[in-house]
């Protein structure tokens, strides 16, 4: 409740930010910033796309736009491009919390994806981090292995 309340107060401010920010970024940095200039691991995007289509697509949709108020979008999502540890744990543990993505709330639970291998999780996360207008460093199978160990 409190969270909703504060959200309402900052909403106009956020909106101004959303409107102004892209202008600022374009002006300062120009277009097409690559992440560390590092190439993505070979084949990871192709493999990740396959995992995405078989596992994530129905809920998050082919274009990553999600389903309004049920399943959040992966487009320009801070969850996707942010902290890899948190992101890996969304897939390993699932998520059942009312979350906010790009100013909208999503209530459905996301089931854990533990049936996927460490390689598959790394690939699908690398894929979503470099698709749907996102740009972020690749996730490695070793990072996933490390998080999965902590589950037990």
């Amino acid at each position, binding site marked *: 409740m409190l969270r909703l309340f504060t959200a309402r107060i900052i909403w*106009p401010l956020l*909106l101004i930010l959303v409107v102004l920010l892209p202008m600022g970024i374009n002006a300062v940095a120009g277009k097409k910033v690559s992440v560390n200039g590092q190439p993505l691991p070979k084949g990871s995007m192709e493999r990740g796309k396959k995992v995405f289509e078989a596992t994530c697509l*129905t809920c998050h*949709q082919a274009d990553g736009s999600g*389903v*309004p108020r049920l399943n959040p*979008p992966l487009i320009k999502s801070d969850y996707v491009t942010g902290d890899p540890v948190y992101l890996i744990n969304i897939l390993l543990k699932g998520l059942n919390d009312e979350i906010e993505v790009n100013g909208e709330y999503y209530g459905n639970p996301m*089931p854990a994806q533990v*049936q996927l291998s460490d390689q598959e999780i790394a690939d699908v996360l690398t894929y979503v981090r470099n698709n749907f207008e996102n740009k972020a460093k690749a996730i490695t199978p070793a990072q996933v292995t490390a998080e999965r160990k902590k589950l037990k």
Partner: protein
Amino acid sequence: MLVRFLLASSLWFGIVYTTRASDTTKIQTPAGFSTSIIADDLGNARHIAAAPNGVLFIKLERLKNGKGILRLEDNNKDGIYETITGFGNFGGTGIAVKNGYLYASSNSEVYRYRLNDKFEVLDADKPELIVTGLVNKNQHESKSITLDNAGNLYINVGAPSNACQVADRTKGSPGQDPCPILETAGGIWRFRANKLNQSYSEGTHYATGLRNVVGLDWNSAINELFVMQHGRDQLAQLYPDLYNDKQSAELPAEEMFMIKEGSNCGWPYCYYDGQQKKKVLAPEYGGDGKKEDRCANMQKPVVAFPAHMAPNALLFYTGDKFPARYKNGAFIAFHGSWNRAPLKQEGYLVAFVPFSNGQPSGEWEIFANGFAGVAEVKSPRDAKHRPCGLTQGADGAIYVADDVKGTIYRITYNN
């Protein structure tokens, strides 16, 4: 964009709000019918209810400007409902006007407000709590309501699950048998409409085996309850060996049931295959897409619709302002699918089923279409509007509520 937002929000805080009615989405209806927009930008407008004097009440899924219920009135009778007031500090879906009261639901309670003879709300800050403690677990959480003519209130409690697997929507996880969710959800509960503070123990477990009902209506012509079920999702993702993407997009049917006390409609053990025209065993319970097993005894639908179209409202038309074939027939608002991906989405329309003697007397047909405002909905976010609520106004028109933008449509017949 910014200017528009500021304008909209500042106007909204006031009592009177002028609708811009600028939406150009064209709605297609059969010859002789026409559609107009009577209010717009209301928020996530879920269900809508009409009072006998023409006033409309709308339940918002989320609070807008701190209000969860809107009262709309067209004072100057120009077809635009310009006088809008808000109250109620809870979001939700269900709303109904009955015997001098306005009933409205959150995702776990039902409240009611006393109305005066102008259908203004008395004690807007002090509604009576009628039902409390209903299951609400972030999935299929909306509580739709309808009332009969004998003082009873019917509420759906959706199952917080897709198919009652041990781990919801997880490949390889078995179905729980018996499904414990059915004890407090996945069905319809009946309560007294005028008794306060009722919880499950004071209610009647009226029907079971219903995964998620959002649209339901009391059919006054035959005094029976009818409900629309949202069928299960993800057959191909969970059982790729048994179903391909196309089959998964087309199975199972969305079902309309005539409910009697004690009805069991089969979820999670069974689903209805509209092509084979039978209830088959769900793969979580050993089904192979053909086997009937225990499903042979489950209640059959009175109408089967294409899969995943998400029927969110049901309305039996009792007016006499539409041609005779519409009398006592059923209108259904289909919110539109998401579970058909990667195939294109379907629904986003209002359907009609003719009835005679309380039973369907013909095939279902599209009544109003074009709400999405795009030629093809690939992803639900493409849709500019999604029909979610339906009511029959005092003027004999039907009103459709959209929960994307909060656009309210009136559909009239003019020879």
